[in-house]
């Protein structure tokens, strides 16, 4: 079953968000495992640009027909950009969770938090545990 994609170029939160850093900006989305568990995504709700968020805050929502999940900020900082096209194309979360299906970008206020996130290997282990559960 576990043929999910895990990307080495980013880190993961235990709540299944990924963060990819360029400079002090982190792009955030949900993992391939998360989109697979949700099944067909029908709706995403994104935060307002300009708000300040703390690591662990619920800042977005992703929904399938039968489930609604919060998306938590994996890092603290300011929301500087959102994927404006995503609400009209929620299927991108399923089709390309690590690319076109990104949610928002955070300007990190505490870049050290990034190192606390799981790397692909650790996250993969975590997913395997959750699956076996």
């Amino acid at each position, binding site marked *: 079953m576990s043929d999910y994609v895990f990307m080495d170029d980013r880190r993961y939160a235990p709540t299944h968000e990924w963060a990819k850093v360029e400079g002090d900006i982190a792009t955030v989305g949900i993992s391939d495992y998360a989109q697979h568990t949700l099944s067909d995504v029908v*709706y995403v*709700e994104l935060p307002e640009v300009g708000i300040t968020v703390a690591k662990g805050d619920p800042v977005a929502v992703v*929904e*399938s*027909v*039968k*489930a*609604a999940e919060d998306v938590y900020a994996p890092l603290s900082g300011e929301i500087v950009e959102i994927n404006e096209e995503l609400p009209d194309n929620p299927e991108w979360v399923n089709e390309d969770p690590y690319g076109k299906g990104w949610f928002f970008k955070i300007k990190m206020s505490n870049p050290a938090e990034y190192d606390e996130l799981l790397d692909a290997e650790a996250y993969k282990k975590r997913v395997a545990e959750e699956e076996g559960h």
Partner: protein
Amino acid sequence: MVYIPNTDAEREEMLRTIGVERIADLFHDVPEPYRNPRLNLPQPLSEAEILAELRDMSEANADLDHVAIFLGAGSYHHFVPSVVDMVISRSEFYTAYTPYQPEVSQGVLQSLFEYQSMICALTEMDVANSSHYDGATATAEAVIMALNVHRRKRKRVVMSPTVHPMYRQTVYTYTQGMNLTIVGEDAPRHDLQALADLIDDDTCCVIVQNPDFLGRMFTPQEMQALADAAHAHKALFVVVIDPISLGFMVPPGRYDADIVVGEGQSLGSLPQFGGPYLGIFAFKKEYVRKSSGRLVGETVDAEGKRGYVITLSTREQHIRREKATSNICTNEALVAIAAAVYMASMGKEGLRRVAELSYHKAHYAAKRIAEIEGFEVLSSWPFFKEFVVKCPAPVQEINDYLIEEWGIIGGYDLSQDYPDLENAMLLCVTEMNDREEIDALISAFQEIAGGALESSVKFYLPT
């Protein structure tokens, strides 16, 4: 045993399959001392006996086949075409549960979709849900929706004093745990500018009724001005409507209402002592994710054929649980289907006729009453089918006389809700009141003006 098909022999066989001796063995988890308590209930009756008793009980009520009625105040005696009860008596509809399995529920689902469509047409709003419990709870749900649109950060509600008193009370009940400030009820009646002045940046919504509880119709321009005042502070504009009035009145979608609620009983249901009724709930599409109640949507099946499903359920309690937009589950689906049948039967021409007949008859009655010495029509404003009359005696005394001497149910005693409206009666006239009845009411009032109350023995003396 009535309604239980199995015989003793069948029960024995079933017990053997389960592997227990007696039915009582199935209840061993129930704490012994509390098991099989006595129920002090009347002896069971046969169908003929209970129907005879119920007929007696029902005949102890003064029903509208035997009296004329000029009482409204949120429950109305409008015409109900025969087709309505015929349709909702189809047991495919009335013995179904909530349409959780769409493939075998297309009847209910399409009927509710058409109800939603016709409510949107009536109100000119983008979206209507498939019902709340009644007008009062729909109003309370509108407040909660407005709070949620503002992510619960705004804590103030502006509510007009001429929203139905029971709706206002229900808003208070629903929101008692939410730390809200509700203002506006002390504002001068019918003064929309006074309400506008109360709106601030902490206000989540403004609620007004049109026509209001006292029957006043506000112009689209007046309503638009209040909408603008609300929107200037990003507050939502909530309008409580009477669906019959929309037979000719400009709908709230045309004056920028954000949420429209109302009592849908007039659309095909009899007054039936207050329920089940129908909570109309419509809104702008940008708020759909914050809305409460069930929504039916169109889709296609695996072969591409059109079909209907409950949709956007992630707002609802069975999925969102503590984060749901409301706890509502069971609604008033069958009453909504009745409303759909009513709206389809009357159509655009029929509904307009019902509204106009009510308007003309109410104005005829008001004009005649205004001519009677001692009675004063306080409705100096444009009104729809209800108007306020100041009487020469307490309303209760007038109403006692009307029923005793004339077989007429008089109007609503406004002093219960508005202490300054002493001896004031809210009268309602619909297309069901013919001229003879109205003229009888006029004659009765003339008798009262002539001193009839003093000479009459008081009706019904509770000892």
